[in-house]
Protein backbone atom coordinates (compact mmCIF):
# COMPACT_ATOMS: atom_id res chain seq x y z
CA UNK A 1 0.00 0.00 0.00
CA UNK A 2 2.89 2.31 0.74
CA UNK A 3 4.41 1.54 -2.62
CA UNK A 4 1.12 2.33 -4.32
CA UNK A 5 0.81 5.59 -2.45
CA UNK A 6 4.37 6.57 -3.24
CA UNK A 7 3.83 5.85 -6.87
CA UNK A 8 0.72 7.99 -6.72
CA UNK A 9 2.76 10.81 -5.23
CA UNK A 10 5.39 10.36 -7.88
CA UNK A 11 2.89 10.63 -10.65
CA UNK A 12 1.54 13.78 -9.12
CA UNK A 13 4.92 15.42 -9.09
CA UNK A 14 4.66 15.90 -12.87
CA UNK A 15 1.06 17.06 -12.80
CA UNK A 16 1.44 19.65 -10.08
CA UNK A 17 3.24 22.66 -11.47
CA UNK A 18 2.34 25.09 -8.72
CA UNK A 19 0.26 25.50 -5.60
CA UNK A 20 -2.89 26.36 -7.53
CA UNK A 21 -2.70 23.10 -9.44
CA UNK A 22 -2.28 21.27 -6.15
CA UNK A 23 -5.46 22.80 -4.79
CA UNK A 24 -7.36 21.88 -7.95
CA UNK A 25 -6.17 18.31 -7.79
CA UNK A 26 -7.15 18.16 -4.14
CA UNK A 27 -10.67 19.10 -5.14
CA UNK A 28 -10.60 16.29 -7.69
CA UNK A 29 -9.37 13.94 -5.01
CA UNK A 30 -12.08 14.93 -2.59
CA UNK A 31 -14.85 14.60 -5.16
CA UNK A 32 -13.64 11.22 -6.35
CA UNK A 33 -13.35 9.96 -2.82
CA UNK A 34 -16.87 11.01 -1.94
CA UNK A 35 -18.33 9.28 -4.96
CA UNK A 36 -16.24 6.16 -4.53
CA UNK A 37 -17.28 5.95 -0.91
CA UNK A 38 -20.94 5.82 -1.91
CA UNK A 39 -20.28 2.86 -4.11
CA UNK A 40 -17.78 1.09 -1.92
CA UNK A 41 -19.84 1.08 1.28
CA UNK A 42 -22.67 -0.51 -0.58
CA UNK A 43 -20.39 -3.04 -2.16
CA UNK A 44 -18.85 -3.82 1.17
CA UNK A 45 -22.29 -4.42 2.67
CA UNK A 46 -23.51 -6.85 0.09
CA UNK A 47 -20.34 -8.35 -1.28
CA UNK A 48 -19.82 -8.99 -4.97
CA UNK A 49 -22.04 -12.03 -5.34
CA UNK A 50 -25.37 -10.50 -4.39
CA UNK A 51 -25.50 -7.93 -7.22
CA UNK A 52 -24.39 -10.52 -9.76
CA UNK A 53 -27.01 -12.95 -8.50
CA UNK A 54 -29.64 -10.25 -8.70
CA UNK A 55 -28.78 -9.69 -12.35
CA UNK A 56 -29.84 -13.23 -13.16
CA UNK A 57 -33.32 -12.86 -11.73
CA UNK A 58 -36.17 -12.33 -14.11
CA UNK A 59 -37.82 -9.58 -12.08
CA UNK A 60 -34.62 -7.63 -11.94
CA UNK A 61 -33.97 -8.06 -15.64
CA UNK A 62 -37.43 -6.79 -16.37
CA UNK A 63 -36.93 -3.79 -14.13
CA UNK A 64 -33.63 -2.93 -15.84
CA UNK A 65 -35.19 -3.40 -19.23
CA UNK A 66 -38.15 -1.20 -18.30
CA UNK A 67 -35.90 1.49 -16.87
CA UNK A 68 -33.82 1.57 -20.05
CA UNK A 69 -36.74 1.66 -22.43
CA UNK A 70 -38.68 4.33 -20.57
CA UNK A 71 -35.75 6.60 -19.86
CA UNK A 72 -34.38 6.11 -23.37
CA UNK A 73 -37.62 7.09 -25.03
CA UNK A 74 -38.20 9.91 -22.57
CA UNK A 75 -34.77 11.44 -23.06
CA UNK A 76 -34.94 11.14 -26.86
CA UNK A 77 -38.27 12.96 -26.84
CA UNK A 78 -36.85 15.47 -24.40
CA UNK A 79 -33.80 16.30 -26.52
CA UNK A 80 -35.93 16.63 -29.63
CA UNK A 81 -37.98 19.31 -27.92
CA UNK A 82 -35.02 20.80 -26.11
CA UNK A 83 -32.99 21.53 -29.25
CA UNK A 84 -35.38 23.98 -30.92
CA UNK A 85 -36.34 25.48 -27.56
CA UNK A 86 -32.74 25.93 -26.47
CA UNK A 87 -31.83 27.39 -29.84
CA UNK A 88 -34.70 29.86 -29.67
CA UNK A 89 -33.73 30.93 -26.18
CA UNK A 90 -30.13 31.39 -27.25
CA UNK A 91 -30.77 33.26 -30.47
CA UNK A 92 -34.09 35.06 -30.45
CA UNK A 93 -34.80 38.01 -28.20
CA UNK A 94 -38.51 37.50 -27.79
CA UNK A 95 -40.42 39.40 -25.10
CA UNK A 96 -40.76 37.55 -21.82
CA UNK A 97 -37.77 35.38 -22.51
CA UNK A 98 -36.59 35.63 -18.94
CA UNK A 99 -39.95 34.36 -17.75
CA UNK A 100 -39.92 31.39 -20.09
CA UNK A 101 -36.44 30.43 -18.96
CA UNK A 102 -37.59 30.37 -15.37
CA UNK A 103 -40.66 28.32 -16.23
CA UNK A 104 -38.74 25.64 -18.06
CA UNK A 105 -36.95 24.46 -14.95
CA UNK A 106 -40.20 23.92 -13.05
CA UNK A 107 -40.20 20.13 -13.42
CA UNK A 108 -36.93 19.79 -11.57
CA UNK A 109 -37.76 22.45 -9.04
CA UNK A 110 -40.99 20.90 -7.88
CA UNK A 111 -40.40 17.77 -5.87
CA UNK A 112 -40.72 14.66 -8.08
CA UNK A 113 -43.81 13.52 -6.22
CA UNK A 114 -45.49 16.87 -6.84
CA UNK A 115 -44.73 16.43 -10.51
CA UNK A 116 -46.41 13.02 -10.40
CA UNK A 117 -49.43 14.44 -8.63
CA UNK A 118 -49.66 17.27 -11.14
CA UNK A 119 -49.64 14.75 -13.98
CA UNK A 120 -52.36 12.74 -12.27
CA UNK A 121 -54.46 15.87 -11.99
CA UNK A 122 -53.95 16.65 -15.67
CA UNK A 123 -55.50 13.36 -16.64
CA UNK A 124 -58.52 14.07 -14.51
CA UNK A 125 -59.42 17.10 -16.55
CA UNK A 126 -61.74 16.81 -19.52
CA UNK A 127 -58.93 16.95 -22.03
CA UNK A 128 -56.97 14.47 -19.97
CA UNK A 129 -59.74 11.94 -19.73
CA UNK A 130 -60.40 12.29 -23.43
CA UNK A 131 -56.76 11.49 -24.16
CA UNK A 132 -56.89 8.53 -21.83
CA UNK A 133 -60.04 7.18 -23.38
CA UNK A 134 -59.20 7.76 -27.02
CA UNK A 135 -55.47 7.99 -27.43
CA UNK A 136 -53.12 6.54 -24.85
CA UNK A 137 -53.58 5.56 -21.25
CA UNK A 138 -50.95 7.19 -19.10
CA UNK A 139 -52.21 6.75 -15.57
CA UNK A 140 -50.93 3.55 -14.04
CA UNK A 141 -49.41 2.51 -17.36
CA UNK A 142 -45.90 2.47 -18.78
CA UNK A 143 -46.51 5.58 -20.96
CA UNK A 144 -47.04 7.40 -17.67
CA UNK A 145 -43.48 6.58 -16.67
CA UNK A 146 -42.20 7.84 -19.99
CA UNK A 147 -44.22 11.03 -19.60
CA UNK A 148 -42.97 11.76 -16.10
CA UNK A 149 -39.39 11.02 -17.07
CA UNK A 150 -39.77 13.19 -20.16
CA UNK A 151 -40.56 16.23 -18.03
CA UNK A 152 -37.55 15.64 -15.83
CA UNK A 153 -35.15 14.95 -18.70
CA UNK A 154 -36.41 17.94 -20.65
CA UNK A 155 -35.91 20.45 -17.84
CA UNK A 156 -32.25 19.52 -17.63
CA UNK A 157 -31.59 19.05 -21.33
CA UNK A 158 -33.03 22.39 -22.33
CA UNK A 159 -30.76 24.28 -19.97
CA UNK A 160 -27.67 22.55 -21.28
CA UNK A 161 -28.74 22.95 -24.90
CA UNK A 162 -29.37 26.62 -24.38
CA UNK A 163 -25.97 27.29 -22.96
CA UNK A 164 -24.40 25.20 -25.72
CA UNK A 165 -25.98 27.26 -28.46
CA UNK A 166 -25.16 30.47 -26.65
CA UNK A 167 -21.54 29.47 -26.96
CA UNK A 168 -21.79 29.00 -30.72
CA UNK A 169 -21.03 32.32 -32.36
CA UNK A 170 -24.13 33.68 -34.09
CA UNK A 171 -21.88 35.33 -36.58
CA UNK A 172 -20.97 31.97 -38.05
CA UNK A 173 -24.61 31.46 -38.88
CA UNK A 174 -24.75 34.94 -40.40
CA UNK A 175 -21.85 34.23 -42.70
CA UNK A 176 -23.40 30.91 -43.65
CA UNK A 177 -26.62 32.70 -44.54
CA UNK A 178 -24.78 35.01 -46.89
CA UNK A 179 -23.05 32.06 -48.45
CA UNK A 180 -26.48 30.86 -49.44
CA UNK A 181 -27.90 28.95 -46.47
CA UNK A 182 -31.52 29.09 -45.47
CA UNK A 183 -31.94 29.38 -41.70
CA UNK A 184 -32.42 25.60 -41.49
CA UNK A 185 -29.30 24.93 -43.58
CA UNK A 186 -27.24 27.29 -41.48
CA UNK A 187 -28.40 25.40 -38.41
CA UNK A 188 -27.75 21.99 -39.87
CA UNK A 189 -24.35 22.66 -41.40
CA UNK A 190 -22.88 25.11 -38.93
CA UNK A 191 -24.60 25.41 -35.55
CA UNK A 192 -25.54 21.78 -35.06
CA UNK A 193 -22.09 20.29 -35.76
CA UNK A 194 -20.51 22.82 -33.45
CA UNK A 195 -23.08 22.10 -30.75
CA UNK A 196 -22.76 18.36 -31.09
CA UNK A 197 -20.89 17.62 -27.89
CA UNK A 198 -23.09 19.90 -25.84
CA UNK A 199 -26.20 18.25 -27.19
CA UNK A 200 -24.86 14.82 -26.40
CA UNK A 201 -24.10 15.99 -22.87
CA UNK A 202 -27.61 17.38 -22.57
CA UNK A 203 -29.04 14.07 -23.69
CA UNK A 204 -26.93 12.05 -21.29
CA UNK A 205 -27.75 14.27 -18.31
CA UNK A 206 -31.44 14.07 -19.11
CA UNK A 207 -31.23 10.33 -19.53
CA UNK A 208 -29.42 9.84 -16.26
CA UNK A 209 -32.01 11.89 -14.39
CA UNK A 210 -34.78 9.86 -16.02
CA UNK A 211 -33.08 6.57 -15.14
CA UNK A 212 -32.86 7.49 -11.50
CA UNK A 213 -36.36 8.84 -11.05
CA UNK A 214 -38.59 7.32 -8.42
CA UNK A 215 -41.08 9.87 -7.10
CA UNK A 216 -42.63 11.18 -10.28
CA UNK A 217 -42.89 7.98 -12.25
CA UNK A 218 -44.12 5.90 -9.33
CA UNK A 219 -46.80 8.45 -8.53
CA UNK A 220 -48.32 8.49 -11.98
CA UNK A 221 -47.69 4.90 -12.94
CA UNK A 222 -47.89 3.09 -9.64
CA UNK A 223 -45.46 0.34 -8.76
CA UNK A 224 -46.92 -2.80 -10.26
CA UNK A 225 -44.44 -5.66 -10.33
CA UNK A 226 -43.63 -6.79 -13.82
CA UNK A 227 -45.45 -3.85 -15.34
CA UNK A 228 -44.47 -0.46 -13.97
CA UNK A 229 -41.69 -1.43 -11.62
CA UNK A 230 -38.56 0.36 -12.72
CA UNK A 231 -35.22 -0.10 -11.00
CA UNK A 232 -35.57 2.83 -8.58
CA UNK A 233 -39.06 1.63 -7.64
CA UNK A 234 -37.72 -1.85 -7.14
CA UNK A 235 -35.01 -0.55 -4.86
CA UNK A 236 -37.54 1.37 -2.80
CA UNK A 237 -39.87 -1.60 -2.51
CA UNK A 238 -37.09 -3.82 -1.31
CA UNK A 239 -36.15 -1.25 1.26
CA UNK A 240 -39.80 -1.02 2.28
CA UNK A 241 -39.89 -4.73 2.93
CA UNK A 242 -36.63 -4.51 4.80
CA UNK A 243 -34.80 -6.61 2.25
CA UNK A 244 -31.71 -4.49 2.64
CA UNK A 245 -29.31 -6.82 0.92
CA UNK A 246 -31.42 -6.94 -2.16
CA UNK A 247 -32.13 -3.23 -2.16
CA UNK A 248 -28.44 -2.39 -2.01
CA UNK A 249 -27.57 -5.04 -4.57
CA UNK A 250 -30.08 -3.52 -6.97
CA UNK A 251 -28.74 -0.08 -6.22
CA UNK A 252 -25.28 -1.24 -7.23
CA UNK A 253 -26.64 -2.81 -10.39
CA UNK A 254 -28.40 0.42 -11.33
CA UNK A 255 -25.32 2.50 -10.57
CA UNK A 256 -23.04 0.21 -12.51
CA UNK A 257 -25.27 0.03 -15.56
CA UNK A 258 -25.75 3.79 -15.68
CA UNK A 259 -22.08 4.58 -15.23
CA UNK A 260 -21.12 2.13 -17.99
CA UNK A 261 -23.46 3.82 -20.43
CA UNK A 262 -22.17 7.27 -19.51
CA UNK A 263 -18.58 6.14 -20.00
CA UNK A 264 -19.44 4.64 -23.37
CA UNK A 265 -21.06 7.87 -24.50
CA UNK A 266 -18.06 9.82 -23.29
CA UNK A 267 -15.75 7.65 -25.34
CA UNK A 268 -17.97 8.08 -28.34
CA UNK A 269 -17.81 11.83 -27.95
CA UNK A 270 -14.08 11.87 -27.64
CA UNK A 271 -13.45 9.54 -30.52
CA UNK A 272 -15.24 11.56 -33.15
CA UNK A 273 -14.06 15.02 -32.10
Amino acid at each position, binding site marked *: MVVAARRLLGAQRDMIRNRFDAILLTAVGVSTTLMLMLILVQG*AYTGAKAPLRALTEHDVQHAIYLSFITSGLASVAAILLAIPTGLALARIQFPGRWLVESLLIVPIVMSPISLGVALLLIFRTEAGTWIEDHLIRFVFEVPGIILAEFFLAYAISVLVVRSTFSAVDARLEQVARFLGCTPWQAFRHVSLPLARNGIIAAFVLGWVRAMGDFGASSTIAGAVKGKTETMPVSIYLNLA*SVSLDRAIALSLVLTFVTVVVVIMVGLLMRRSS
Partner: protein
Amino acid sequence: MSRRCILLRRLASWPAVMFFLVVGCNERPGSDGKHSPGTSSRPDSSGQASGVTLELFVGSATKPPVEEAAQVYENATGTRMLLHFGGSGKMLAEMKLARRGDLYFPGSSDFMEMAKRERLVLPETERRVAYLIPAINVPAGNPKGIKGLEDLAKPGVRVGIARPDSVCVGLYAAEVLERNGYAARVKPNIVTHVESCEKTAQLVAIGSVDAILGWEVFHYWQPDKIETILLKPNEVPRIGYLPIAVSVFSKEKEQALKLIEFLVNGQGRESFRRWHYVTTLEEARTYALPDTPVGGEWRLPEEW
Protein backbone atom coordinates in the same frame (compact mmCIF):
# COMPACT_ATOMS: atom_id res chain seq x y z
CA MET B 1 10.12 22.48 -2.78
CA SER B 2 8.22 24.57 -0.26
CA ARG B 3 6.71 22.84 2.74
CA ARG B 4 3.29 23.98 1.79
CA CYS B 5 3.63 22.42 -1.61
CA ILE B 6 4.61 19.13 -0.08
CA LEU B 7 1.68 19.27 2.30
CA LEU B 8 -0.71 19.94 -0.53
CA ARG B 9 0.71 17.08 -2.51
CA ARG B 10 0.12 14.79 0.42
CA LEU B 11 -3.40 16.10 0.70
CA ALA B 12 -4.06 15.32 -2.91
CA SER B 13 -3.04 11.71 -2.32
CA TRP B 14 -5.29 10.94 0.60
CA PRO B 15 -8.07 9.74 -1.68
CA ALA B 16 -5.97 6.67 -2.26
CA VAL B 17 -5.58 6.20 1.47
CA MET B 18 -9.31 6.65 2.01
CA PHE B 19 -9.98 4.01 -0.60
CA PHE B 20 -8.01 1.41 1.27
CA LEU B 21 -9.47 2.47 4.60
CA VAL B 22 -13.05 2.13 3.48
CA VAL B 23 -12.54 -1.22 1.82
CA GLY B 24 -10.44 -2.58 4.61
CA CYS B 25 -12.35 -1.56 7.66
CA ASN B 26 -15.86 -2.63 6.82
CA GLU B 27 -18.27 -4.37 9.15
CA ARG B 28 -19.95 -7.42 7.78
CA PRO B 29 -23.76 -7.51 7.89
CA GLY B 30 -25.37 -9.78 10.41
CA SER B 31 -23.63 -8.32 13.38
CA ASP B 32 -26.48 -5.88 13.92
CA GLY B 33 -28.66 -7.90 16.22
CA LYS B 34 -25.76 -8.85 18.42
CA HIS B 35 -25.49 -5.46 20.05
CA SER B 36 -26.23 -5.96 23.68
CA PRO B 37 -28.70 -3.53 25.03
CA GLY B 38 -26.52 -1.04 26.79
CA THR B 39 -27.40 0.56 30.06
CA SER B 40 -28.78 4.00 29.90
CA SER B 41 -25.96 6.45 30.36
CA ARG B 42 -28.17 9.29 31.40
CA PRO B 43 -29.41 9.62 34.97
CA ASP B 44 -33.05 8.76 35.14
CA SER B 45 -34.88 11.33 37.15
CA SER B 46 -38.48 10.36 36.82
CA GLY B 47 -40.86 13.25 36.71
CA GLN B 48 -38.32 15.82 35.59
CA ALA B 49 -37.27 14.07 32.41
CA SER B 50 -36.36 17.16 30.44
CA GLY B 51 -33.20 16.65 28.46
CA VAL B 52 -34.35 13.21 27.37
CA THR B 53 -35.19 12.60 23.75
CA LEU B 54 -37.26 9.71 22.53
CA GLU B 55 -36.92 8.68 18.91
CA LEU B 56 -39.80 6.83 17.26
CA PHE B 57 -39.93 5.03 13.95
CA VAL B 58 -43.60 5.03 13.04
CA GLY B 59 -45.52 3.54 10.15
CA SER B 60 -47.55 6.25 8.50
CA ALA B 61 -50.81 4.42 9.11
CA THR B 62 -50.90 6.20 12.46
CA LYS B 63 -49.43 9.55 11.62
CA PRO B 64 -52.24 11.88 12.73
CA PRO B 65 -52.83 10.48 16.22
CA VAL B 66 -49.17 9.83 16.94
CA GLU B 67 -48.23 13.38 16.12
CA GLU B 68 -50.89 14.68 18.43
CA ALA B 69 -50.10 12.25 21.24
CA ALA B 70 -46.41 13.02 20.99
CA GLN B 71 -47.07 16.70 21.38
CA VAL B 72 -49.21 16.09 24.44
CA TYR B 73 -46.52 13.87 25.94
CA GLU B 74 -43.82 16.39 25.27
CA ASN B 75 -45.80 19.18 26.88
CA ALA B 76 -46.55 17.05 29.90
CA THR B 77 -43.16 15.56 30.59
CA GLY B 78 -40.68 17.76 28.76
CA THR B 79 -39.36 14.75 26.89
CA ARG B 80 -38.31 15.75 23.41
CA MET B 81 -40.02 13.63 20.77
CA LEU B 82 -38.27 12.83 17.53
CA LEU B 83 -40.69 11.21 15.11
CA HIS B 84 -39.93 9.43 11.83
CA PHE B 85 -42.86 8.58 9.59
CA GLY B 86 -42.86 6.41 6.54
CA GLY B 87 -43.71 2.97 5.29
CA SER B 88 -43.47 0.42 8.12
CA GLY B 89 -40.87 -1.57 6.22
CA LYS B 90 -38.84 1.48 5.33
CA MET B 91 -38.90 2.59 8.94
CA LEU B 92 -37.61 -0.76 10.07
CA ALA B 93 -34.89 -0.67 7.42
CA GLU B 94 -33.83 2.78 8.53
CA MET B 95 -33.78 1.82 12.16
CA LYS B 96 -31.73 -1.21 11.30
CA LEU B 97 -29.22 0.69 9.18
CA ALA B 98 -28.83 3.65 11.46
CA ARG B 99 -28.74 1.49 14.59
CA ARG B 100 -30.60 3.98 16.65
CA GLY B 101 -34.13 4.66 17.86
CA ASP B 102 -36.15 4.05 20.99
CA LEU B 103 -39.46 2.69 19.72
CA TYR B 104 -40.78 0.95 16.66
CA PHE B 105 -44.46 1.46 15.88
CA PRO B 106 -45.40 -0.18 12.57
CA GLY B 107 -48.78 -0.29 10.91
CA SER B 108 -49.20 -4.04 11.17
CA SER B 109 -48.26 -7.08 13.18
CA ASP B 110 -46.50 -8.57 10.14
CA PHE B 111 -43.75 -6.04 10.37
CA MET B 112 -43.50 -6.38 14.12
CA GLU B 113 -43.02 -10.12 13.63
CA MET B 114 -40.24 -9.32 11.18
CA ALA B 115 -38.68 -6.92 13.64
CA LYS B 116 -38.78 -9.57 16.34
CA ARG B 117 -37.25 -12.13 14.00
CA GLU B 118 -34.40 -9.82 13.15
CA ARG B 119 -33.95 -9.06 16.84
CA LEU B 120 -34.44 -5.34 16.36
CA VAL B 121 -36.99 -4.96 19.14
CA LEU B 122 -37.41 -6.35 22.64
CA PRO B 123 -40.26 -8.82 22.25
CA GLU B 124 -41.34 -8.61 25.87
CA THR B 125 -42.11 -4.91 25.51
CA GLU B 126 -44.64 -5.33 22.71
CA ARG B 127 -48.08 -3.88 23.35
CA ARG B 128 -51.11 -3.26 21.22
CA VAL B 129 -52.06 0.38 20.83
CA ALA B 130 -55.03 0.26 18.51
CA TYR B 131 -56.72 -1.82 15.86
CA LEU B 132 -57.06 -1.42 12.14
CA ILE B 133 -60.07 -2.63 10.23
CA PRO B 134 -59.69 -3.39 6.54
CA ALA B 135 -62.37 -1.70 4.45
CA ILE B 136 -63.18 -0.34 1.03
CA ASN B 137 -62.47 3.36 0.53
CA VAL B 138 -63.92 5.45 -2.27
CA PRO B 139 -63.62 9.07 -3.39
CA ALA B 140 -66.09 11.42 -1.71
CA GLY B 141 -69.46 11.07 -3.30
CA ASN B 142 -68.81 7.43 -4.25
CA PRO B 143 -69.05 8.09 -7.98
CA LYS B 144 -69.31 4.45 -8.96
CA GLY B 145 -71.77 3.59 -6.20
CA ILE B 146 -69.66 0.90 -4.60
CA LYS B 147 -71.52 -0.92 -1.85
CA GLY B 148 -69.38 -3.97 -1.25
CA LEU B 149 -66.75 -6.34 -2.53
CA GLU B 150 -69.13 -7.59 -5.21
CA ASP B 151 -69.15 -4.16 -6.84
CA LEU B 152 -65.38 -4.16 -7.13
CA ALA B 153 -65.69 -6.92 -9.70
CA LYS B 154 -68.05 -4.95 -11.93
CA PRO B 155 -66.64 -4.10 -15.34
CA GLY B 156 -65.28 -0.58 -15.64
CA VAL B 157 -64.55 -0.21 -11.97
CA ARG B 158 -60.96 0.83 -11.32
CA VAL B 159 -59.49 -0.57 -8.12
CA GLY B 160 -56.17 0.26 -6.51
CA ILE B 161 -54.28 -1.45 -3.74
CA ALA B 162 -50.90 -1.18 -2.11
CA ARG B 163 -48.12 -3.58 -3.08
CA PRO B 164 -49.06 -6.76 -1.25
CA ASP B 165 -45.47 -7.90 -0.89
CA SER B 166 -44.18 -4.82 0.85
CA VAL B 167 -46.99 -2.73 2.33
CA CYS B 168 -49.19 -4.00 5.15
CA VAL B 169 -52.42 -2.55 3.88
CA GLY B 170 -51.64 -4.18 0.54
CA LEU B 171 -51.16 -7.53 2.17
CA TYR B 172 -54.50 -7.18 3.92
CA ALA B 173 -56.14 -6.22 0.63
CA ALA B 174 -54.88 -9.40 -0.98
CA GLU B 175 -56.04 -11.41 2.00
CA VAL B 176 -59.51 -9.87 1.91
CA LEU B 177 -59.89 -10.73 -1.74
CA GLU B 178 -58.41 -14.22 -1.48
CA ARG B 179 -60.22 -15.32 1.64
CA ASN B 180 -63.56 -14.11 0.29
CA GLY B 181 -63.07 -15.66 -3.11
CA TYR B 182 -63.11 -12.44 -5.06
CA ALA B 183 -59.47 -12.51 -6.09
CA ALA B 184 -59.97 -13.86 -9.59
CA ARG B 185 -62.86 -11.52 -10.37
CA VAL B 186 -61.48 -8.33 -8.90
CA LYS B 187 -57.87 -8.74 -10.04
CA PRO B 188 -58.61 -7.64 -13.63
CA ASN B 189 -59.96 -4.41 -12.20
CA ILE B 190 -56.89 -3.71 -10.15
CA VAL B 191 -55.21 -1.03 -12.23
CA THR B 192 -52.30 -0.27 -9.97
CA HIS B 193 -50.24 -1.26 -6.98
CA VAL B 194 -48.77 1.66 -5.09
CA GLU B 195 -45.79 1.57 -2.84
CA SER B 196 -47.03 3.02 0.44
CA CYS B 197 -49.98 3.43 2.77
CA GLU B 198 -50.31 7.16 2.12
CA LYS B 199 -50.13 6.66 -1.63
CA THR B 200 -53.02 4.22 -1.34
CA ALA B 201 -55.17 6.77 0.44
CA GLN B 202 -54.05 9.38 -2.06
CA LEU B 203 -55.41 7.28 -4.91
CA VAL B 204 -58.98 7.96 -3.82
CA ALA B 205 -58.32 11.40 -2.41
CA ILE B 206 -57.31 12.55 -5.88
CA GLY B 207 -59.79 10.28 -7.53
CA SER B 208 -57.38 8.35 -9.72
CA VAL B 209 -59.28 5.12 -9.01
CA ASP B 210 -62.88 4.33 -8.10
CA ALA B 211 -62.07 2.31 -4.99
CA ILE B 212 -59.21 1.04 -2.88
CA LEU B 213 -58.86 -1.62 -0.28
CA GLY B 214 -57.50 0.28 2.65
CA TRP B 215 -58.20 0.90 6.29
CA GLU B 216 -61.53 1.96 7.72
CA VAL B 217 -59.82 4.89 9.35
CA PHE B 218 -58.74 6.47 6.05
CA HIS B 219 -61.99 8.38 5.95
CA TYR B 220 -60.95 10.32 9.02
CA TRP B 221 -57.67 11.29 7.45
CA GLN B 222 -59.44 13.38 4.83
CA PRO B 223 -63.14 13.38 5.67
CA ASP B 224 -64.10 15.57 2.75
CA LYS B 225 -62.26 13.50 0.18
CA ILE B 226 -62.40 9.87 1.30
CA GLU B 227 -65.38 7.75 2.22
CA THR B 228 -65.28 4.35 3.81
CA ILE B 229 -67.49 1.45 2.81
CA LEU B 230 -67.35 -1.13 5.54
CA LEU B 231 -66.96 -4.78 4.73
CA LYS B 232 -69.52 -7.23 5.98
CA PRO B 233 -68.42 -8.71 9.29
CA ASN B 234 -67.83 -12.11 7.75
CA GLU B 235 -65.69 -10.61 5.04
CA VAL B 236 -63.06 -9.33 7.44
CA PRO B 237 -60.44 -12.07 7.47
CA ARG B 238 -58.24 -10.62 10.16
CA ILE B 239 -58.28 -7.68 12.47
CA GLY B 240 -55.06 -5.80 12.21
CA TYR B 241 -53.56 -4.22 15.23
CA LEU B 242 -50.99 -1.56 15.75
CA PRO B 243 -48.13 -2.91 17.85
CA ILE B 244 -45.45 -0.91 19.52
CA ALA B 245 -42.25 -2.17 21.07
CA VAL B 246 -39.00 -0.85 22.46
CA SER B 247 -36.08 -0.97 20.07
CA VAL B 248 -32.92 -2.84 21.00
CA PHE B 249 -30.94 0.28 20.18
CA SER B 250 -32.74 2.36 22.78
CA LYS B 251 -30.69 4.04 25.45
CA GLU B 252 -33.75 5.27 27.30
CA LYS B 253 -35.63 2.06 27.88
CA GLU B 254 -37.39 3.25 31.01
CA GLN B 255 -38.62 6.35 29.29
CA ALA B 256 -39.66 4.36 26.24
CA LEU B 257 -41.76 2.05 28.38
CA LYS B 258 -43.36 5.07 29.98
CA LEU B 259 -44.37 6.36 26.57
CA ILE B 260 -45.85 3.01 25.63
CA GLU B 261 -47.91 3.11 28.79
CA PHE B 262 -49.00 6.60 27.92
CA LEU B 263 -50.18 5.52 24.49
CA VAL B 264 -51.89 2.33 25.56
CA ASN B 265 -53.47 3.30 28.85
CA GLY B 266 -52.83 6.95 29.40
CA GLN B 267 -53.81 10.14 27.69
CA GLY B 268 -52.24 9.04 24.44
CA ARG B 269 -55.23 6.83 23.98
CA GLU B 270 -57.42 9.88 23.73
CA SER B 271 -55.53 11.03 20.65
CA PHE B 272 -56.25 7.74 18.95
CA ARG B 273 -59.91 7.94 19.95
CA ARG B 274 -60.17 11.48 18.68
CA TRP B 275 -58.87 10.36 15.33
CA HIS B 276 -61.43 7.59 15.33
CA TYR B 277 -59.00 4.72 15.65
CA VAL B 278 -60.41 1.63 17.26
CA THR B 279 -58.69 1.29 20.62
CA THR B 280 -60.41 -1.68 22.22
CA LEU B 281 -60.73 -5.22 20.99
CA GLU B 282 -64.41 -5.19 21.79
CA GLU B 283 -64.98 -2.29 19.48
CA ALA B 284 -62.84 -3.91 16.81
CA ARG B 285 -64.94 -7.05 16.96
CA THR B 286 -68.04 -5.04 16.13
CA TYR B 287 -66.71 -4.77 12.60
CA ALA B 288 -66.04 -8.46 12.31
CA LEU B 289 -67.07 -11.79 13.75
CA PRO B 290 -66.40 -12.85 17.35
CA ASP B 291 -63.83 -15.36 16.25
CA THR B 292 -62.01 -13.33 13.65
CA PRO B 293 -58.28 -13.68 14.33
CA VAL B 294 -56.37 -10.70 15.48
CA GLY B 295 -52.89 -10.12 14.12
CA GLY B 296 -50.67 -13.01 13.21
CA GLU B 297 -49.31 -13.53 9.74
CA TRP B 298 -50.69 -14.49 6.39
CA ARG B 299 -48.59 -15.79 3.51
CA LEU B 300 -49.01 -14.02 0.23
CA PRO B 301 -49.83 -16.47 -2.57
CA GLU B 302 -47.27 -16.66 -5.39
CA GLU B 303 -49.50 -15.25 -8.08
CA TRP B 304 -49.66 -11.89 -6.37
